[in-house]
């Protein structure tokens, strides 16, 4: 009994010892005509996973040999150009040498070689019975069906009735992504599916049900074809709807939907609420604009290579009112108080086939705001103080339609042309009522009751044409563009005011009544043309030359009628027409050095302003004025930036900026439209020049996560625009624009980010300091107002676990203002803002969010010490399949303390705001609502 076991053990050891021996593998590679294939590649692979063990090349007689092959299951694979790679089992069962003998290789079918490999550059895959091509590379005309594509594939025949055969065998079944398509009729799929949606075509032998289960194979009679769909053709759209109702008659509704594929993007967004949150986030903006979200380097006013020519992105338009853009609606912050009611929405369509890009967008915006509040304003003169206290009520409603179309055509790799047009139409109604009391020190000076109603209509049309050319010579570039902007604004303004002036003894001295209808039409046509030419001087030196031309024609017609009980009489003193032409030429050149992270530019420009204005009073008064001025200025420019240490950037720049005076300021005419503040133009004004310096440094340490940055800028003014004011005993101010020297602005901004505990506690510290010095004249005394403002900021992100996130922020603002004519009025203002936000995922998948904000305003001089605590809560939970829904219950301003509050050195205002309310809201998101206790980190 024991012997056979022993024998077995011995024989097992014997086998294992025996199989420890290495062996040799040899063979000869030939073609089908028995001619040796010389220098063919022979690979020795592990049989189990094709891991390469060794490789060899065949000798002149086609032979090869692997020596000392370690025992195991092996394969030999031979490859030769123009032949189908061949794999042969080369395992040695007993450790003896293996001679594979003659390995005959088959030629690649000519059509596979010429059509698939050479022409289509498609890989072919041989997997047992399957030959697979990558169909993406088979060019078929747009709109072709899969059938048209199949006709081009080698080895596949398509009969006139649509039936398909592969390698002579019928294709009985067509599947899409492995699934049957419209039953099993192969023609249904191939005739209906667009060819451009297919990424791969596979053809293999049809397996019977039995073979599928057992894995056994037999010689099949027919074939199955599988069509794999491209990823982007699987993409549908995404979108969401959020609806909420609350107490205090609050409600919000927001929805967006988005559909896109490789070429076409379509999106729609709509928002309506009376909660003051515009409800639009950065993500909503990106979802709406799609590939047009960012327009890199689309500035058209060519100039010096700014800051070394780093890419900056522009949000088209900018500014307020008529010339503001759609983006400004998206990024408008929350309103500071009042009771708002906002509606906006739009459509966007983008088409992009790499040679042609079309984008079009339409947006409607309506916003209404009711405000009730008080404000106070204080001014200091040599020897006395004026203070104004007002009660005001405002009710504003504005509506705007905006549309934009852009077409960019890449004519070829060297030429690009772009056309852009936009139009806007807005209406605006502003109603205000104000009672203000003005005191001269402590004595009552005047009391004014004013009611204003302004209706504004405006329209804008803008067209831009741009041409960019790259030359054959690398680095030689040219850009040309021209644009025309037309705007028209018409105000209808009814003013009804009564001002009572008091004498020293607080006795009513006189009363001024204004009851006017004001019709004011302003037109502007602005034409611009710009050219840029870049010439490479060597691999590292370039010259950049530019020319800018701008011509602006502004006309205005203001008719003021005094209203009495029965009649309307033209007020000839105040009515006027004007026509202004502002022309500008600028030509400049710079020399730029760019190499290995070092960029230096030195240049200069010459700039000319031409100002022509005609001003005409109405009727018999015939006040009129003519301005005809030309100003010339030199503008030097220098910039450099480089990377002195790894991940550290240093830049320095100097430039000069010349700003022309406005024609209104140059006209030697008295403007007494506001009887409290009478302005007279100054024909002696010259352009304001600012010398602007900046120095920046930043450095990051990727491993520790520390980042630091320091940015400084200093602007020194020559002939800065300022005002000379004189104030009479009734506190009526007479003002004249003047040029002053000695003004400056300095800013320093430091930042430091570092983790205290990696990924758990991180902190961000910022410190900003600004000094402003601006001289002005009051009653012939020079007053240098200098102010320092310091803004420290610190934030902690605390994310100890996946289900908890706490964010703490402190944002302080100290302002120190000094008046050298009246030091007793110097003031120190401190505004503090603290916030703590916490999100926690609690039991049953319920999220809890609490956001506490505490704002504090101090100003000792005016006895101000206000604090505004705001606490918002919400609890929410994802519902529905794939978390597509979310129910949220929120309580805003739990303490009911919300007010709109503003405090600066001379002005303070407080107004009503939406207080405590509760809201229940529901979100439905096609892609599923993603909830996280952590805030999104930026990528």
């Amino acid at each position, binding site marked *: 009994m024991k012997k056979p076991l022993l024998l077995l053990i011995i024989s097992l050891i014997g086998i294992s010892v025996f199989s420890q021996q290495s062996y040799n593998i040899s063979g000869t590679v030939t073609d089908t005509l028995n001619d040796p294939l010389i220098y063919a590649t022979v690979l020795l692979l592990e049989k189990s996973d*094709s891991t390469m063990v060794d490789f060899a090349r065949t000798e002149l007689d086609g032979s090869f040999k692997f020596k000392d092959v370690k025992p195991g299951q092996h394969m030999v694979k031979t490859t030769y*150009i123009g032949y189908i790679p061949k794999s042969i089992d080369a395992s040695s069962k007993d450790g003896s040498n293996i001679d594979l003998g003659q390995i005959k290789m088959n030629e690649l079918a000519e059509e596979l070689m010429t059509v698939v490999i050479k022409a289509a*550059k498609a890989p072919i895959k041989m997997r047992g019975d399957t030959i697979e091509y990558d169909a993406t590379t088979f060019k078929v005309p747009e709109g072709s069906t899969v059938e048209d594509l199949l006709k081009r594939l080698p080895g596949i025949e398509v009969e006139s009735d649509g039936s398909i055969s592969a390698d002579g065998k019928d294709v009985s079944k067509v599947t899409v992504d492995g699934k049957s398509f419209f039953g099993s009729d192969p023609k249904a799929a191939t005739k209906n599916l667009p060819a451009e949606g297919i990424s791969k075509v596979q053809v293999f032998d049809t397996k019977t049900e039995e073979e599928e289960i057992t894995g056994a194979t037999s010689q099949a009679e027919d074939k199955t074809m599988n069509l794999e769909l491209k990823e982007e053709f699987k993409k549908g759209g995404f979108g969401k709807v959020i609806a909420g109702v609350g107490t205090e008659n609050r409600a919000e509704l927001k929805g967006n939907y988005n559909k896109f594929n490789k070429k076409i993007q379509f999106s729609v967004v709509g928002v309506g609420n009376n909660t003051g949150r515009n409800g639009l986030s950065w993500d909503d903006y*990106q979802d709406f604009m799609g590939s047009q979200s960012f327009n890199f380097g689309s500035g058209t006013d060519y100039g010096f290579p700014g800051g070394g020519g780093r890419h900056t992105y522009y949000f088209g338009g900018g500014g307020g009112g008529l010339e503001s853009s759609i983006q400004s609606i998206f990024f408008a912050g929350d309103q500071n108080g009042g009771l708002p009611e906002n509606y906006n929405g739009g459509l966007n369509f983008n088409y*992009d086939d790499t040679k042609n890009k079309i984008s079009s967008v339409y947006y409607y915006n309506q916003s209404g705001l009711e405000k009730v509040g008080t404000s106070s304003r204080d001014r200091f003169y040599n020897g006395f103080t004026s203070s104004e206290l007002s009660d005001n009520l405002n009710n504003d409603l504005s509506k705007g339609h905006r549309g934009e179309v852009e077409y960019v055509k890449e004519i070829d790799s060297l030429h690009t042309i772009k056309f852009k047009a936009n139009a806007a139409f807005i209406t605006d109604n502003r109603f205000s009522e104000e009672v203000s009391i003005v005191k001269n020190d402590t004595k009552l000076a005047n009391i004014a009751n004013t009611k204003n109603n302004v209706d504004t209509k405006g329209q804008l049309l803008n067209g831009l044409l741009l041409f960019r050319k790259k030359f054959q010579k690398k680095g030689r570039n040219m850009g040309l563009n021209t644009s025309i902007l037309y705007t028209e604004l018409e105000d209808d303004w009814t003013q009804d005011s009564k001002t009572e002036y008091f004498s020293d003894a607080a006795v009513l001295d006189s009363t001024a009544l204004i009851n006017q209808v004001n019709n004011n039409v302003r037109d502007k046509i602005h034409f611009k043309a710009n050219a840029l030419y870049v010439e490479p001087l060597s691999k590292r030196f370039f010259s950049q030359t530019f020319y800018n031309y701008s011509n602006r024609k502004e006309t205005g017609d203001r008719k003021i009628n005094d209203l009495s009980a029965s009649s309307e009489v033209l007020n000839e003193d105040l009515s006027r027409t004007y026509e202004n032409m502002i022309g500008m030429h600028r030509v400049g050149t710079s020399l730029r050095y760019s190499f290995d992270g070092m960029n230096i530019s030195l240049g200069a420009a010459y700039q000319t302003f031409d100002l022509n204005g005609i001003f005409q009073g109405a009727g018999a008064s015939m006040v009129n004025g003519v301005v005809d001025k030309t100003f010339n200025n030199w503008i030097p420019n220098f910039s450099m930036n480089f990377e002195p240490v790894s991940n550290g950037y240093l830049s320095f720049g100097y430039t000069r900026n010349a700003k022309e005076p406005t024609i209104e300021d140059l006209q030697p005419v008295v403007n007494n439209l506001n009887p409290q503040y009478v302005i007279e133009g100054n024909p002696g004004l010259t352009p304001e020049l600012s010398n602007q310096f900046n120095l920046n440094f930043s450095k990051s340490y*990727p491993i520790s996560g520390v980042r630091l940055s320091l940015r400084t800028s200093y602007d020194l003014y020559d002939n800065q625009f300022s005002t000379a004011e004189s104030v009479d005993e009734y506190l009526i101010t007479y003002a004249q624009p003047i040029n002053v020297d000695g003004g400056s602005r300095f800013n320093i901004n430091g930042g430091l980010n570092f983790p205290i505990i990696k990924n758990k506690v991180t902190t961000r510290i910022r410190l900003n300091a600004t000094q402003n010095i601006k001289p002005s004249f009051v009653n012939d005394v020079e007053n240098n107002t200098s102010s320092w403002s310091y803004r420290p900021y610190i934030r902690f992100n605390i994310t100890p676990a996946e289900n908890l996130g706490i964010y703490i922020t402190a944002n302080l603002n100290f302002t120190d203002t000094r008046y050298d004519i009246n030091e007793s009025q110097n003031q120190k203002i401190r505004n503090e803002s603290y916030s703590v936000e916490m999100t926690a995922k609690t039991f049953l998948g319920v999220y809890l969010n609490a956001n506490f904000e505490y704002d504090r305003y101090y100003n000792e001089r005016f006895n101000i010490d206000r604090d505004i605590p705001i606490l918002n809560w919400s609890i929410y939970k994802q519902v529905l399949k794939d978390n597509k829904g979310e129910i949220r219950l929120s309580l805003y301003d739990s303490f009911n303390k919300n007010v709109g509050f503003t405090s600066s050195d001379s002005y303070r205002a407080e107004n009503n705001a939406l207080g405590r309310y509760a809201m229940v809201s529901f979100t439905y998101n096609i892609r599923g609502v993603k909830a996280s206790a952590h805030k999104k980190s930026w*990528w």
Partner: protein
Amino acid sequence: MKNIIYTIIVLFFFAPSAQAQEMQGLITYNRKTDYISIMSKLPHISQEEVDRMSLTWGNWNSKGRDYELSFKGDKSLYKLREKETTEGYSWKPDKFILTRDYKTNQKFDIIETLGKVYLIEEEIPKTKWKILNEIKEVAGYLCMKAETKNLVKGQTIHAWFADGINFMGGPEGYGGLPGTILELDINDGDAIITATEVNIEMPEVSTALPKKVKGKKIAQSDLDVIVKKYIDETIEGKKNPYWRVRY
């Protein structure tokens, strides 16, 4: 029929008889990185965010970056091609120079990553290649497909190598196959490095290292630990590590 195929071979491919000699040449590669695809795979990115990225940046055409592999006998040098600053601004690229000597089985790499320049001089690591049943043409050469894994970055690497070019190196430091790698596909298209120009009759190529490079000497395994730690920590912090680390 056979003649036609031979004509094709002679016209398009390098004549096999010449392959036995010591070769030298210069291959230009273009590297394109698909950051949308890379970020789509990060655990903290939702499907909606993936859609948003492809919507905004999907049509953004990057020209990629050009690299050069010069080789002579068993030695090679792989580096970024010196770029002309035609865009009006010059960035300083991270240093990335890899040399291989397959005869002595030694490598010397200069790699700038995570704010430091590292020098790695050691044996060429053994790459475990699987040979797959696929062929295609790259830059006029018929190539076979091979697969390996990068365990540090968790990537599947597919290499298309031309057994018609008798040099066993390739781009990004990969090699060890019976022929030069002409295309490298990292994680199914996340990054693709393709040969755009193959010149194997260059009269003069240099595989010499630049003189005087300051850096910290490190073993590849130690650098792998640093990089792996950074990748893991950054992903844990819900950010994309591959802005800083070469994918």
